[in-house]
């Protein structure tokens, strides 16, 4: 069946209202995890930047706007989306153009999340169509806004299960003059996390801390002289862990989990307290592992079909099955099961925002 592709918010609202069965919401189709059945409803037709004020660090775009288009517009003014949008195509074997609505739906956030915040922290406002086909506005285009409940945060990371995003607004930031990465070779996971914690706990504004292939990386950004000063001070502060040398930026690869591209097996994304990371990695028995966010985010490549959650037991955090065979995803569920009281709230919200249970049905359940 041909995908529904509304070209306006009004048309989108009508299509949702008139839907007679479940809908599968897609933007560029590059980063969705899990699976759900339904008639495809593509938001790619709602495209374009509606407002961009560099002096106010504000950008408003329709949900189907390609991320690439936004990045080009921002780059012209020396600005960027500060949360480093991951490109999941290589990892998930997808093609197509990622849309900004999909980024928000997944709350997709890269290495800078550890210091600057996630997609949800830069998201100022949303417009969306709920499961009944009603258009809802929340938040706005200003940086400080506590007027009414913050449904903006709720929509970020809801994976289209509470509403179909039609417009999003962001706080954007200037691209710093210089970025510099220091690396230390040969630390084990425990020392790597300790080093990253020390780096993030030092007053030098570390904007990335990751571990991949035995190398521990930390990133500094800002004006050139300031970065040079902080690099020296940081290397000295971390000298007990080993020697720190400037290396080429590994961040795009870390952001996109490049090390797992074209490698067989399931891919899991585990969110934990950084100090728990070494233990989690040891328990997982993974084929390959890497850490971002100072240890707070672990990427694991596991033998196909492994129930990672069972291996991790009482995990203080959550594990998402990002890539796996359909029967594995069906058996284990892409998203981590929630405690009963939280699950009850989640269920209640879904029932209110999508009373007919038609939006990405069962995706996060």
């Amino acid at each position, binding site marked *: 069946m041909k995908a529904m592709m509304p070209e306006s918010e009004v048309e989108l609202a009508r299509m949702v209202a008139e839907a007679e069965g479940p809908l599968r919401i897609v933007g560029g189709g590059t980063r969705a995890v899990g699976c759900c059945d339904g008639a495809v409803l593509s938001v790619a037709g709602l495209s374009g930047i509606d407002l961009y004020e560099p002096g106010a660090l504000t950008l408003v775009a329709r949900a189907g706007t390609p991320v690439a288009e936004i990045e080009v517009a921002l780059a012209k003014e020396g600005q960027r989306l500060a949360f480093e949008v991951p490109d999941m195509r290589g990892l998930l074997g997808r093609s197509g153009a990622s849309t900004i609505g999909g980024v928000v739906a997944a709350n997709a956030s890269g290495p800078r999340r550890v210091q600057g915040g*996630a997609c949800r922290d830069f998201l100022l406002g949303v417009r969306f169509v709920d499961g009944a086909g009603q258009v809802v506005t929340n938040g706005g285009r200003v940086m400080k806004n506590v007027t009414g409940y913050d449904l903006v*945060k709720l929509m970020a990371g809801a994976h289209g299960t509470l509403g179909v995003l039609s417009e999003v607004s962001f706080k954007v930031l200037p691209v710093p003059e210089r970025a510099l990465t220091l690396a230390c070779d040969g630390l084990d996971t425990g020392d790597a996390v300790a080093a990253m914690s020390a780096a993030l706990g030092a007053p030098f504004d570390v904007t990335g801390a990751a571990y991949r292939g035995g190398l521990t990386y930390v990133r500094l950004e800002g004006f050139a002289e300031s970065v040079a000063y902080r690099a020296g001070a940081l290397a000295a502060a971390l000298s007990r862990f080993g020697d720190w040398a400037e290396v080429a930026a590994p961040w795009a690869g870390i952001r996109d989990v490049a090390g797992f591209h074209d490698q067989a097996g399931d891919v899991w994304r585990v969110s934990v307290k950084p100090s728990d990371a070494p233990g989690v990695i040891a328990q997982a028995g993974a084929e390959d592992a890497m850490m971002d966010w100072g240890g707070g985010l672990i990427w694991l490549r596991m033998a196909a079909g492994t129930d990672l959650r069972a291996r991790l037991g009482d995990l203080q955090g959550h594990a998402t099955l990002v890539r796996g065979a359909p029967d594995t995803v069906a058996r284990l569920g892409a998203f981590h099961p929630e405690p009963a009281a939280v699950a009850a709230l989640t269920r209640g919200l879904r029932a209110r925002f999508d009373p007919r249970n038609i939006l990405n049905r069962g995706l996060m359940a």
Partner: protein
Amino acid sequence: MQMPAPNPAVLAKKPQLVTRLLQVLPRDAVIDDIAETRAYECDALTAYRCPPLVAVLPSSTAEVSAVLRICHDMGVPVVPRGSGTSLAGGALPTADCVILGVARMSQVLETDYPNRLIRVQSGRTNLSVTGAVEQDGFFYAPDPSSQLACAIAGNIAMNSGGAHCLKYGVTTNNLLGVTMVQMDGTIVEIGGGYMDAGGLDLLGVICGSEGQLGVVTEATLRILPKPEGARPVLVGFDSNEVAGECVSDIIKAGVLPVAIEFMDRPCIRATEAFAKAGYPDCEALLIIEVEGSEAEIDDQLARIIAIAQRHNPVELRESKSAEESARIWLGRKSAFGAMGQINDYMCLDGTIPVSQLPYVLRRIGEMSQQYGLGVGNVFHAGDGNMHPLILFDANKPGDLELCEAFGADILRLCVEVGGCLTGEHGVGIEKRDLMVDQFSQTDMEAQMAVKDVFDAKWLLNPAKVFPLDTSAARRVAAA
């Protein structure tokens, strides 16, 4: 401003209610004497007062749960209260409610430097969170002006900001997890030491829900390493427009100050008369603070000064020492007190797109003439969060109403230019009836649907945030 009439059925239940509360709380934690309940009759929005039916001061999550279960069972509304510093009436009682104060829950439960977090009971004051970690070089970033007194519980309820949130964000950006008790007594843990939600971002909607979704009893907060140092520069301009352009140019240049504060002439004059900080007599004044090592501060201030100089400032004063910094901040920090010396004032906090600053200030000036009430503006310019202070005389009949009408017009103007009613104080009762100017009925229905899920009987802080007629059906069904 109206509040719903107290429910006589609830008022009649007071003796049974007190008896049941005393079964789960010690005697000194249940305040039912009419004279003593007066201590809880208002928050920092002192124009409105009403003693509660009863006030309770539980000491643990379990006690909070027991109290809420009783109130839920008996159909008694509950108004949660942190330290009672809300400027929006967030903790204003109704005569038929139980005030649930978290002031006795102020312990630090855990400090964890490797993971950069602290876990506290929610009655702990904002500044004392920083106090618990500063000896080890850390701090808690959100810094509302009431930080000496205000509680983390209230900060979470209102998603409080502060002068330094331009760089560090507001409460929601620094909150990792909560222990919350729902109205029916259910204790729920949301988030924790990890950085993102596994399912829906419930923490994101709980923060800023004005005590309407649950009572937060414990919070996991992000702490940050203290910067090596900080220093401001003060710049005076002879027009608001030029000052606004200067702010925009600084932001565009890629300098990220921790604070950009703006004061207009009425506010500068009042402040100068009061605090004698040595401010220039000019139309608009900016205080811009940057952080880092000494060399980094010098470098950033040099960049800012170069930008400011392109806008022909009438005064430019760079702090070179802690003493000079204190002097520059003195006036700004005294601004509210200074305005209070002149008269009673009402403090608004609408936010506008930064580009609309000159227009909005001009319109506020015109409205000030029309209403015949003075107004001074002091605000966080970097993020467009305004704080117009409208002067009025509380003893003059009709002046409060006139001031409220003027305030409402300013807030409508904020919405009209693309901003919002409140940037960091919250809606409470103060802006409740203006919600219709910012939101459609559908928008508010979506928000109220969240409350339906967390508090089906609409017993938690029910008469706030949503206009009374908008929430009437739900509140009546609950009663």
